[in-house]
């Protein structure tokens, strides 16, 4: 795909001597945030298909009572990997794809603060993702659930290699997320164009900004929880060994101190995308912008104080139960405000039913359901009936599928033209939306019933005559519909890259900064750093904005024409990432592999850090 309009022969050759603009090397060695964003997008969509396939096998197994499509052992691997894949390998990196692609464009920057670190994050994600995904093809995938509760995951109860892949794999993925978070925090604080004050930032960038702080504060906690488990498994420590007196709840506390913020890490970027799509397709500024910002921040802050609502059944005592219940209920307020403000944005506007807008409206409609069921188990007595049943499965799929995935699909349709210069097919897009919307509800709404009618989660089979058969059948039919809708999306996505209608710089007549520059975006993004005077430069801007937009909308200029210095392409971040994963793999194989990986990593790291980022400026 051509992200750059510049003809190849005009491009500067890099020091390493390969062509920077086409061919596979141009992707492997890229440090361009847009290309890295696209790499994230392709990879994450690939993992999304893998996670989806796992889900479909699960639904096939549960289609009727006493299913025998997969064994208990395989089922446990499938549901563990479905959760792990969708959270860490699909939704988070899909969000990262948009962080990468959009944040610099929305704040008027030429790239992220640390372009090579950005490449490093991607490669760690790719190799870590493969590390944790490949074992399922050899029937040794992790089987302790995405939550990995101890003591089940300790060597005493899971001596096989399965959990090793999970512990080490998540540790690797954590490095990727943290490196990216430092990068984006710095980018947003420090690379905003002149006049792009914090309260003029597009809402997607705002929500992403909040998410980066959550990542920075939440990931170290799971890192430590995983270090303990890793040490228990590899070095014989006792952190989670019940025979040594360990408290099985230590893991749960550490995991959910990370795990609950993680939920908002998954949903806030989608909220951000929807907050771009709805104004653009209503031809109206976002309603209550400051409140949207503050509610996002409040959700994040409260998100760190509610982790134990995942543990109402563990017997924490009435005081802790009450405190965490009340804190959880409080989160309903800023979340509700967001929903109302989206509706307020559309009110009195001109709502245009693009595919992206359908997905955004879908998010508002479905997330509302997930939010309401969320309040239902914020009440511990009620939760004692709901927790660990299919009611919870229904709830978080309304949040994560109805919320995150709908938002991300909307984002893909909305920003596809900016990424590729072409529009996705709207007709196929709408078919995709409707099958997806109906299939989603068909899959997950009946789970509210199967759960309240007593069906536990994570069971590989259930008996006949329990009153669950019909609901499960409906759920499975819905899942098959989702397969169809996803296939339509995949076809549309692949086909539109080459054959889609040419988009132009602002196909949606949107108002934010990223729509002032050509599509696809030139590699330098902005010919001249824009001067920003309003939240919607294309709608509300004065002459300064208009002048910036005029300069930046010119196509066909090369960096050389404009005297813009761009970073060198380099494969060093990839080598560091690869050798790091080799080093971790050594834990499972042999010390020799570990040391070789570590040695290569250190050498490559020094080589990276001591090499200049970009040519000297003249």
């Amino acid at each position: 795909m051509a992200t750059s309009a510049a003809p190849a022969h005009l491009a500067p050759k890099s020091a390493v001597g390969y062509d920077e603009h086409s061919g596979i090397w141009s992707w492997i060695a890229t440090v361009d945030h847009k290309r890295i964003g696209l790499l994230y997008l392709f990879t994450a969509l690939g993992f999304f298909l893998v996670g989806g396939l796992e889900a479909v096998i699960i639904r096939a197994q549960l289609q009727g009572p006493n299913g025998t499509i997969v064994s208990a052992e395989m089922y446990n691997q499938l549901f563990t990997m479905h959760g792990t894949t969708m959270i860490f390998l699909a939704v988070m990196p899909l969000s990262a794809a948009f962080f990468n692609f959009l944040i610099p464009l929305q704040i008027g920057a030429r790239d992220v603060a640390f372009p090579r670190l950005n490449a490093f994050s991607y490669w760690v994600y790719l190799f870590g993702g493969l590390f944790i995904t490949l074992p399922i093809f050899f029937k040794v995938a992790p089987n302790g659930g995405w939550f990995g509760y101890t003591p089940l995951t300790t060597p005493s109860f899971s001596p096989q290699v399965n959990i090793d892949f999970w512990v080490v794999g998540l540790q690797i993925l954590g490095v990727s997320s943290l490196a990216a978070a430092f990068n984006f925090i710095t980018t947003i604080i420090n690379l905003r164009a002149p006049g792009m004050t914090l309260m003029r930032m597009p809402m997607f960038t705002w929500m992403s900004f909040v998410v980066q702080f959550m990542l920075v504060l939440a990931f170290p906690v799971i890192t430590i929880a995983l270090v303990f488990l890793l040490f228990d498994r590899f070095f014989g420590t006792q952190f989670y060994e019940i025979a040594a007196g360990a408290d099985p709840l230590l893991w749960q506390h550490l995991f959910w101190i990370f795990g609950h913020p993680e939920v908002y890490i998954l949903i806030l970027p989608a909220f951000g995308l929807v907050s771009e799509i709805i104004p653009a397709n209503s031809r109206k500024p976002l309603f209550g912008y400051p409140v949207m910002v503050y509610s996002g921040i409040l959700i994040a802050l409260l998100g760190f104080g509610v982790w134990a609502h995942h543990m109402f059944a563990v017997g924490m005592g009435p005081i802790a139960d009450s405190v965490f219940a009340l804190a959880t209920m409080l989160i309903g307020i800023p979340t509700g405000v967001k929903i109302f403000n989206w509706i307020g944005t559309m009110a009195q506007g001109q709502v245009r039913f693009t595919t992206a807008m359908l997905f955004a409206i879908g998010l508002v409609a479905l997330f509302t359901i997930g939010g309401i069921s969320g309040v239902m188990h914020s009440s511990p007595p009620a939760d004692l009936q709901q927790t660990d049943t299919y009611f919870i499965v229904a709830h978080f799929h309304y949040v994560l599928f109805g919320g995150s995935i709908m938002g991300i699909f909307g984002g893909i349709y909305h920003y596809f033209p900016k990424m590729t210069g072409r529009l996705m097919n709207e007709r196929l897009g709408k078919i995709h939306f409707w099958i997806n919307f109906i299939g989603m509800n068909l899959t997950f709404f009946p789970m509210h019933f199967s759960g309240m009618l007593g069906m536990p989660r994570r069971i590989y089979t259930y008996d006949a005559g329990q009153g669950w058969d019909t609901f499960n059948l409906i759920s499975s039919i819905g899942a098959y519909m989702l397969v169809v809708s996803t296939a339509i999306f995949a076809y549309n996505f692949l086909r539109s890259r080459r054959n889609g209608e040419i988009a132009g710089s602002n196909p949606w007549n949107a108002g934010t900064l990223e729509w002032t520059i050509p599509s696809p975006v030139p590699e330098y993004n902005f010919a001249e750093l824009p001067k920003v005077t309003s939240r919607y430069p294309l709608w509300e801007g004065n002459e300064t904005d208009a002048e910036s937009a005029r300069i930046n909308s010119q196509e066909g200029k090369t960096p050389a024409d404009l005297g813009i210095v761009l970073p060198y392409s380099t494969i060093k971040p990839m080598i560091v990432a690869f050798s790091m994963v080799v080093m971790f793999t050594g834990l499972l194989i042999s010390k020799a592999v570990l040391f070789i990986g570590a040695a290569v990593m250190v050498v490559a790291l020094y080589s990276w850090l001591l090499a200049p980022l970009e040519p000297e400026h003249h």
Partner: protein
Amino acid sequence: MSAPAAHHYTTTGLDSRKIAIWAFIGSECMLFVSLISTYLIYKGRSVVGPYPHEEWVSPTGEHFKAILNIPVTSASTFVLLMSSLFMVLALAAVQNKDVPKRTTGERILGSSKLWLFATAVAGTTFLGFQAFEFTSFVHEGLSIRTNLFGSSFFTLTGFHGAHVTAGVIWLLTLLAIDYRRGLGPNDALIVDIAALYWHFVDVVWIAIFTLVYLIK
């Protein structure tokens, strides 16, 4: 990390690396908070000795004192605190490289090589103390596998030791650069960032020393 050229526009006027290191330190705080909390939660839960502050009898009937050696650790804490002072001097020396030095005292104070080296030596001495402490604990029957105290103690202090080790390597790298091309005021930022990290690691140790060693 090598510099994005100074001509790049930044919103705050600060170098991006300075912002990134603060974000990194924020993250590291959560890392050590998790480690220290676990240690404190598990204090007193071990089902077998040795214990940090109580005497104990081994299964073979031997009597042991409480295992933590506070005088020795106080000494190593002092060394680490001094290293922070050296680090401050090293940064000042780099920042003032271009200021002419007249007296011997000014030349000594202005030697970035000396103070970087001194910081690294102090850090290494601290690590030496830690190696001594770990070895003697193992001789007294406490390993990382022995009990919950052993697991959480060695992991916490080991993590801190690993941070000190990384810091020493960082300092030695700066020292090597200083020898190769000399560090001047233009490099103050990269020394400043290393210094921020070093001081952070030092502060964490003060927390560990207080919560693990001093409070019974």
